[in-house]
Structure formats: C-alpha cells, structure tokens
C-alpha cells in the first residue's frame, strides 16, 4: 500500500528529521510508530499527506510514485488524518466538521454555499453514531464538546471519505487513559471495518502493544526497530528511549515538581 524509499527530510534550519527511511506497509495493517520526542514520527506521518515535502527519496502510494501535484492530490484524497489537538473548527457544528472531511471532493460552488447532499449528511450521522455520539450532538458546536468527544468527531471526519490510509499523530496524547483506550478501540474497529491501513504514532507503549499489528520505532530520524509487538522487549525499549526513558522514570517525582515550576520540557510534561 505504502512504500517509503530512502525518504529523507532536512528542514531549512538543518534539522535532519528523517534519514533514509525504508518501509513497506501492507494494506489493512495497524502500524504504530514509537520513539522519543523529536524522533521524526510526525514528520513521517505528515509526509504522507503532503504537509511535509521530502528532501530526497520518494513515496510510492498504491503503486503510484508521488512526485507531482496531481500525484499529491491523488494521495491526499485517499489519506485521512486524526490529529493530536483534534483540529476541529470550533465554531462549526459537529455535522459540518464531519462533512469537512469530504471537501477534497465536493464541488467548489456547493461548498461555497455550504450545501451537502442529503445522502452525505446521513452518512455523516451514521458515523457520528458509530463513534459513540448521539443526535443531540449533531448540531452542537465543536467547541462545546469535551476533548474525548472532539476526538470522536475527528475520527468520524477522517473516515467519512472512506480513506484507504488513516494517519493518526498521537491521537490520544491529550486524553485520560480510559478515554484513550476507547478512542484507540474506535480507531481500530473503524479501520478494520473498511480494511483501511493505519499509521499511528503513540507515546504509550502499553497501548502500542495492545493495538498494533506491527511496531516501528524511530530515533533521531532513523528506524531503530521494526517488528511485531511481541518482539518489543524491555531491552529493545531501553534502546529506543535510551537513557531518557529510564531516567525519566526514575525522575518522575522530580519532573512533576519541575512541571509545576514550569521548568519541565514538553516531553517531561507529556510523560508526567
């Protein structure tokens, strides 16, 4: 389904966010990306919908090398994304937010007028129900939902266009553990029902072990582990997260205090 061939991304400031990535992800696989902060997980995901343009190497999507604008559009229409901070439009209703997932295909005139066909609206409602929301939410503004509910809408928006690939960049980073599991479950069920490929970055190793068909770990822009969840031993984990992981575990108490003082780095804040 997706092939990365020697994909490399160097940002204008010299940061090497991806270095010679070679991966092949078959259709229908639930692939989790692990790795410490700054490893390049987001960069890899964003290269799949054109938000990041690789410096060298190429992506082959559904057998088609992605090189020009037309290829990019071809890929974008088949790839959907679930975002860490949900990225819903706060002042639009839940229904409109979900329908926004179809804007890539809607005609310009119709979308200018804000009209969507009845059938699409019914589809959207079915999705809204399947992600665990109900009729009362349909015309509520997205800003009036809890974080967990917003991510449900985010998932509905991703799936409305019947994507072949769903990218999820830390979809549960700002949710509590119980809701996180629900959301991951939702993501897996929805993708299994459609045989969609999922590429999901996570910071929670336990969730990765539970939901992934395959785990790819990155560190400083390189793939350092690629295997099934059972291959992901504590030893391997230590290697992936280096001293940082054990260090941060030991220093958990300290990091909480640092966080309270506003000294903690973003990563420590997330881990805490």
């Amino acid at each position: 389904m997706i092939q990365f061939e020697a994909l490399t991304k160097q940002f204008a400031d010299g940061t090497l966010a991806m270095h010679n990535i070679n991966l092949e992800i078959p259709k229908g696989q639930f692939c989790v990306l692990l790795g410490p902060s700054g490893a390049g997980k987001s960069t890899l995901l964003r290269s799949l919908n054109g938000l990041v343009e690789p410096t060298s190497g190429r992506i082959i999507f559904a057998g088609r090398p992605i090189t020009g604008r037309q290829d990019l559009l071809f890929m974008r229409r088949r790839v959907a994304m679930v975002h860490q901070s949900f990225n819903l439009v706060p002042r639009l209703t839940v229904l409109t937010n979900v329908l926004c997932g179809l804007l890539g295909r809607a005609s310009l005139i119709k979308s200018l007028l804000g009209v969507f066909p009845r059938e699409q609206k019914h589809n959207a409602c079915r999705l809204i129900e399947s992600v665990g929301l109900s009729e009362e939410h349909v015309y509520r503004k997205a800003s009036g939902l809890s974080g967990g509910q917003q991510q449900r809408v985010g998932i509905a928006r991703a799936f409305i266009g019947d994507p072949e690939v769903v990218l999820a960049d830390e979809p549960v980073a700002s949710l509590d553990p119980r809701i996180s599991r629900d959301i991951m479950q939702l993501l897996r069920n929805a993708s299994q029902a459609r045989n969609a490929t999922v590429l999901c970055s996570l910071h929670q190793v336990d969730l990765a072990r539970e939901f992934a068909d395959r785990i790819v770990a990155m560190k400083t822009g390189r793939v350092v582990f690629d295997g099934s969840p059972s291959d992901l031993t504590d030893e391997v984990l230590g290697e992936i997260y280096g001293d940082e992981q054990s260090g941060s575990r030991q220093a958990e108490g300290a990091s909480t205090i640092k966080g309270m003082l506003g000294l903690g780095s973003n990563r420590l804040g997330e881990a805490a």
Partner: protein
Amino acid sequence: MVERADTTGKRSVSEWTLRPEYTKRFIAATLLVVVLLTFSAQRTEIDRMMVMSGEALLSVTGITDESQVARGLGRIFGDMFPLVVAERREVGRIENFDPERLPWLGRLETEIQTLSQLNTNTLQMETIEVERQVLIEPLGYLRYVLWLMWQTIEIAIWGTILSVLIAIPLGYFGARNYAPFALLYHLSRTTSSFFRAMPELIIALFLVLAYGFGPIAGVLALGVHTSGFLGKFFAEDIENADKGPQEALLSTGANRVKVLIYTVLPQVAPSYTGYVQYILERNIRSATVLGIVGAGGIGQELKGRFEMFNFGHVSTILLVILLTVIVLEYIAGNLRKRMM
C-alpha cells in the same frame, strides 16, 4: 538604618551612585522642542489667534467693544435662530402645479411684493406692487433635509458594501499564507496602505471631476478609502487564524478557497462583523462631510446654504446631522451589546 559593614566587596549605601532627576539630554531635548515650537507658532499664527481670542473674550465681557471674531460669530449665531423648517416657493416656478392637490400640510398664500421698475413711457423709476401666490409647506424644508440625510446614509451603506467587495481580494491576497505568490501579496498590502493614506475628501474631489456632482463620487470615495482599512484587517485576521484546522482540511485535498471558507471564516466572522459595523458608522459620519466637495448627500446642501449665508437653514441641517449621529451611536452600542 544601620549601615552594614562591607563584607562582599560592594560599596556602602552612602557611596551608591544616584542619578539626577533631569539628565542633560532631557534638558537639551526640551529646549530644542521649545525652539522649534516657537518658530512654528509664528508660521501657524498661534500668536495672532491668542490676541484675537483675547479680544473676543474682552468684548463679550464688555470691557472693549471691538472684536472681529466676536462680531463674526455673533452675526452667524444671530442668524442661526430661529431654525428654518418651512419651505416657501412661488407657485409660478413650480412645474405642473395643481392647486387642487397640495402637498402634505401645504397651504397657499398671496403675498404682495413691491418692485422698482423703469416706466417705459415716462422713463422714470416707479414702484409697483405685484401680487403673487406662494406655496407654503410648514415642515417642507425639514422634510427635505431629512430626505437628504437618508440619502447620505444610503451613500454610506453603499460605500461600505463597495469597501467590503474591494477588501475581500485585498484581504485574501494580502494574507501571506494565502497569496499564491509574493508579488501579489506585496501588491495587495501596498494597495491597502495606499487607499488608507488617501484622504477620502481628496479622492472625492477627483471623482467629482470624473463623475460629476452627486452621490457616485461619494460612494466610490468612501468605498476606496475604507477598503484600505478592511483589506488590512481582513488579511491580518486570516494570517493569525488557528493553523491546526486549516492543515487538517488541506490534507484532505481541499483547495485553499474551501479551507478558507470552512476553517478561517468561521473563526474570524465575529471580528469581521465588528470591523464592518465600525466602517459603516464612520462612513455615515464622513458622508455628511463629503458633500462639501460636491459628492452628494446632506453636505452639499450644507455648503450651499452656508455660502448663501442662510444660517437658519444651516442650523436645521446641523441639528439633523447631530441627532442622526447620536441615534446611530445608540443603535450601534445596543447592537454591539447584543452580539457579545
């Protein structure tokens, strides 16, 4: 306070350097400003203004009796009352006049006018008395002024509509993240600031030459000038809108226009409404003045009456303008409260 022994190698309190209240630079700068202002005061006749105003004050209090300013203002204020609200027109000059169908509150009066005339037979000047009919509408002039005021508001409304229409492309292309290429961005921003910098009175002056006297010049002048403000505000709000939702939609393959409509517009809608409302308010105020250069509306009548020294009419016009502005402020204030 007890002075502590110096243990850290720092100086004792009595040795601390204290700064003077006024530095030399401050004094020099002040002197420079005073000198420059003195020169400029002569050029702008500030001295003469003070002398004349002083005279006026003295003459008002009765100490002296000669003052140009007091005389001028006195004459104008004297003529401003009573307000003229009625309209008198000679029937013979009204086209298609039908005495059976008088306008609202209208009545006919016969007045006798004495004229001096040269008698062609005797070749001598003589006075004759002519009888003529005049139509009197007691509130006729007030009605006319109110109608002009409404026309002025219409000019402002159309000026605002035009302004929004011009500002939409200026805002879109003036947003760095939406302009298709840099040249268009710079062009839009420059156009915006150029429009802002051109006073509307001067734009109107030129447009009156092109389109003739009347509302066209007023509408265009207001639209062009204020689109410079709206274009800038629109563009800045687009640039500052939350990027997350925009990326989310962009990555589904939606083009920029769709992304703008579905993510940016809902975000900026409240502030855009506020800007447009403010522009409409200020356009109504400006439209009353624009007529002075012939761009239609109530200002044109005001200027005409002023030049004919009809200060009774002038005061009616001023009163109507004043009341309109007060009512508008009230309405706008209420609207704002309701929107919040």
